[in-house]
């Protein structure tokens, strides 16, 4: 399962595209795995998008989805 990282999450993990073995059913499960792999992101509040739309942590996901994780946005 492919996951995109942005901003500080990309910097702390050192990659902009990451891969996890299925099955991963929800954003919450995915985030748990990401946090296990990268303990250095423990202080980072994470937001998720599925197919370029904001997704709650309870949102179910499939391998064909475009999944992205990132910290609080700070544009403007």
């Amino acid at each position, binding site marked *: 399962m492919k996951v*995109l990282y*942005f*901003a*500080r999450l990309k*910097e702390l993990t050192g990659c902009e595209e990451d891969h996890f073995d299925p099955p991963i059913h929800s954003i919450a499960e995915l985030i748990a795995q990401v946090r296990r792999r990268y303990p250095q992101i423990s202080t980072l*509040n994470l*937001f998720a*998008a*599925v197919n*370029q*739309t*904001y*997704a*709650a942590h*309870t*949102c179910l996901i499939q391998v064909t989805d475009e999944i*992205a994780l*990132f*910290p*609080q*946005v*700070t*544009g*403007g």
Partner: protein
Amino acid sequence: MISVQTQDFSVAEIYDKLRHANPGPIGAIALFVGLVRDFSHTLQLASLHIECYPGMVERELQRLVAQVQQQFSDVQQIEIIHRIGELLPQEQIVLVGVSATHRAEAFAACEFLIDQLKTTVPLWKKEIRADGNEYWIEHNTPAREQIVC
């Protein structure tokens, strides 16, 4: 109508677009521009790095525009430009412009757009200081904990 770009923008050009698109009923134009503050005497800001999530950034901006067009019936035209990449102190970061029949809606829509942009559109800023240290800006406004799927 919306643009996410590395190059600078001309306020005069965007104002002319707002003024001359469907000019009949337009009685008010409200414009907001955000600039890189230059506190070089204290913070030694060398530049601002702005990153986006390509694709989603445009989708979120379009969603915002559609929301404003629905909520503010008086609004005629909306222009949003946000820059990405490396910006120097005093450079232009973002422009939000609204034309409307009356002033109250022009102001309300313009302020709503920039407030929403800062809390929902996938853009991130990092400060690069003169001493080489880098700091990601943590939040513009109190972080939202829950977003509906």
